[in-house]
């Protein structure tokens, strides 16, 4: 056709000019130290920007820029006592009595609508977090606080029920102070759908600009912020369906930072990109195979297999955790010495645990009557094969990979494992109801073991997070001692270590991995410091030096 060639040429030209025009930058203006713009690619989107009613870590990342705490964790991550905490909204504090903590608010603090931040806001916030109508999942973290009252407009008093090492942490870490004058009229049972949560007014270093559902959230620096003007003038979160998509956006230059690169392959890609810098930091997650010690669906009876401590110990010893971990994570995780995340200060590689010893595992199984009597490769006892089902969610690629590798390791030991891969909602429901033999679970932990550990490994967590119904009074006693009565950090550490070693001897699970994270940030961004419990906690100090600004940073609109 004689006309075909010109038409094709025209189409190409149109496409090329479209690409060219779209690729161009707008006129630029901003110069100096406070012009930076950072785009963060995120594998999830907040549900609502109201801290008490959201459980997502991405929500916390955003709201931590909008709302201040009274004080925040220091770089050491020490949660015991108050000496390592940094003032935020509170200028200073003192202990009136061993159970009475007095905060003095910084008089310079202002809500972004111009109103002063007062002690009444703090009392209001505590009241909201603990109100059953609000249904905050942080309520239980404040159970030791008996009351919060105001002494004057800038002085607020916390009264505790008893004295314990992490009183200060409990008082400050979970509470993001909220503006009473803007939220008082919102009915408490409607906070989860409050309009405020989609256009919040805070007192932090950044103010809310826009939230485009499914696309992005933009914050702008508050140039009058009383603790110092943030260097990056704009921070934008771009939402992708998953973390892999976020990494792709980083590699293609559509974003400047991602929280975690997830796989060794992504780390390699990021390190190969000369524009990116990588920042390793301790992860707050640990993963394990949890055995159900009770019969599935009937917690009054022991599990026909995992009620037997020797069998559990044999399975732990039959698992080459280091090898599986290298396969899945490379060097992006460590084998934990118990149910511990790396951010916990009680992490100690010297904690005693059951070794990988396939010979000893085989002998133990044989001694307890599990032999391969019919030569089919699977051990059996009284005509019953040594087989169980492993529950895991389809949403986790890591766990699916782990499950297959474990299945093979157990097969070599003469144990048959069938995988129950279900979507997360069903996984969660079955885990809570105890309808499983074993599960492959992951916990994202707080900076301290004090609340998470008891909820997961003592009877306090029955019906909640202790899915396998593990119960050893000796562990409970040691945990109580570590949480409530240890007078100092060393004493607490010893109690924790004893508790974990006792638990390891019981083998209620196979502790597989504790994540090590690697964040990637564009090299033009300087002074990047990451606090492991909250990677953007120190965002206010990140900056782009004037000589590294790109047109994207300078653009005005």
């Amino acid at each position, binding site marked *: 056709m004689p006309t075909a060639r010109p038409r094709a040429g025209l189409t190409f030209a149109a496409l090329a000019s479209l690409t060219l025009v779209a690729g161009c930058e707008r006129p630029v203006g901003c110069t100096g130290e406070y012009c930076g713009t950072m785009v963060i690619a995120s594998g999830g989107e907040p549900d609502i920007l109201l801290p008490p009613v959201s459980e997502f870590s991405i929500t916390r990342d955003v709201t931590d820029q909008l709302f201040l705490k009274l004080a925040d964790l220091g770089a050491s991550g020490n949660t015991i006592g108050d000496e390592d905490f940094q003032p935020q909204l509170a200028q200073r504090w003192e202990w009136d009595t061993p159970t009475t903590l007095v905060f003095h608010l910084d008089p310079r603090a202002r809500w972004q609508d111009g109103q002063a931040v007062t002690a009444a806001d703090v009392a209001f916030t505590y009241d909201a977090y603990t109100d059953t109508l609000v249904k905050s999942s942080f309520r239980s973290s404040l159970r030791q606080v008996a009351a919060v009252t105001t002494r004057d407009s800038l002085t607020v008093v916390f009264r505790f029920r008893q004295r314990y090492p992490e009183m200060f942490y409990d008082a400050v870490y979970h509470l993001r102070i909220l503006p009473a004058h803007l939220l008082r009229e919102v009915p408490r049972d409607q906070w*989860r759908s409050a309009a405020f949560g989609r256009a919040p007014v805070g007192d932090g270093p950044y103010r809310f600009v826009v939230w485009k559902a499914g696309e992005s959230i933009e914050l702008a620096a508050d140039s009058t912020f009383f603790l110092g003007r943030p260097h990056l003038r704009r921070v934008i979160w771009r939402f992708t369906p998953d973390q892999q998509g976020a990494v792709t956006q980083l590699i293609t230059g559509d974003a400047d930072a991602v929280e975690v690169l997830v796989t060794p392959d992504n780390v390699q890609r990021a390190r190969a990109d000369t524009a990116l810098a990588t920042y390793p930091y301790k992860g707050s997650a640990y993963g394990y195979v949890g055995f159900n010690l009770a019969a599935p669906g009937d917690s009054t009876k022991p599990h026909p297999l995992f009620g037997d401590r020797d069998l559990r110990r044999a399975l732990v010893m039959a698992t080459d955790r280091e090898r599986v971990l290298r396969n899945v994570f490379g060097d992006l995780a460590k084998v934990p010495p118990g149910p511990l995340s790396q951010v916990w200060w009680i992490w100690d590689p010297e904690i005693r645990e059951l070794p990988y010893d396939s010979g000893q595992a085989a002998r133990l199984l044989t001694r307890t009557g599990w032999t391969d009597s019919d030569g089919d490769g699977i051990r059996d006892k009284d005509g019953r094969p040594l087989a169980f089902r492993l529950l895991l969610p389809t949403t986790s690629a890591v766990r699916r990979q782990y499950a297959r590798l474990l299945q093979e390791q157990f097969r070599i030991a003469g144990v048959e494992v069938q995988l129950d891969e279900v979507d*997360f*909602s*069903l996984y969660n429901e079955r885990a809570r109801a105890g309808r499983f033999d074993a599960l492959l679970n992951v916990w994202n932990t707080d900076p301290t073991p004090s609340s998470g550990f008891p909820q997961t490994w003592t009877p306090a967590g029955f019906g909640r997070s202790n899915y396998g119904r593990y119960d050893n009074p000796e562990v409970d006693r040691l945990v109580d001692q570590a949480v409530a009565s240890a007078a100092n950090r060393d004493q607490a550490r010893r109690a924790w270590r004893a508790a974990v070693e006792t638990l390891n001897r019981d083998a209620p699970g196979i502790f597989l991995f504790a994540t090590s994270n690697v964040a990637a940030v564009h090299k033009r961004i300087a002074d990047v410091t990451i606090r492991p419990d909250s990677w953007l906690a120190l965002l206010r100090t990140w900056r782009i030096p004037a000589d590294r600004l790109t047109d994207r940073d300078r653009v005005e609109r």
Partner: protein
Amino acid sequence: MAAWLVRRLVASMAIVFAVVTITFFVVHLAHGKPCGSDDRPLPPEICQALCRRFGCDKPLLEQYGKYLAALARGDLGESIGLHRPVADALADAIPNTFTLALAALLIDFALGLALGIYQAVRAGRFGDVAVGNVALLVNSMPVFWLGLVLLLVFAQWLRWFPAGGITNPILCPRLDSPYCLLDFLWHLTLPALTLGLVGAASTARYQRAAMLEVVRQDYVRTARAKGLREQRVLLVHALRNALLPIITLFGLAFPFLFTGAVLIETVFAWPGMGRLAVNAIFQRDYPVVTGAALLTSAMVVLGNLIADALYAVADPRIRVRGGEGGP
């Protein structure tokens, strides 16, 4: 024609109602409760309290009755996971999905028709065979896989197009200038191409077959015998009749586009209804799933209705029969 239209509208509403009913029962009967995410599951007492608030502890028929009553008032309910009215969430997502589907539809039919005609004109020759094989290859590809390939090649390797999203969030927070409109089209290109290419491959095959059938007809031979230029014979005389099967294909394209959009929106981080629905399914956000099913089925049914109407416009024989009782 009016009677036919009324009958079709009633039938369409019945179909949408059936889809909503089936979706409602399927999502509610599926195991799992709306209890947070893999990231941080909600504590059981909060999960139960939320369930009570959204009525999922009530008997299913009672929930269904309440849902229908609210629906009759135009209330799609409140999203459990997004903490906002379902109507608002859908209103944000629909324009994006609709734009994507429309752009894909344009690519599908413009490219598909052109290739089909080209193949028919060169039937049996190299061009026909080459285009046919490429079309078959593209048609055999899963749409999400093709999306990933285009993403890898054009976004990651060549960096000609963005890796996802709908606009550049720094330069274009709003579509308020010609520049930002171009930026939007730039972001739209890869997802629309992915969906459009797979559709075009199929359309081209149909169009080729239809054209080959028509060009053998007597009236086409007559047109050529009259000395008309080949271009006019093909594009004016043959094409109109060869379009009839394509109109059927137009109706069928809507379900493909909306199901394809579910995958493509996920691959390209396109904030449309597909992504919204997928997230809602994983989080057991019943009101959003049911609302998305309601709207998607309504759009598919409407697309089919338009296809039937176009059929009547394109084929006078149908118009005559339509007057007697409908197509």
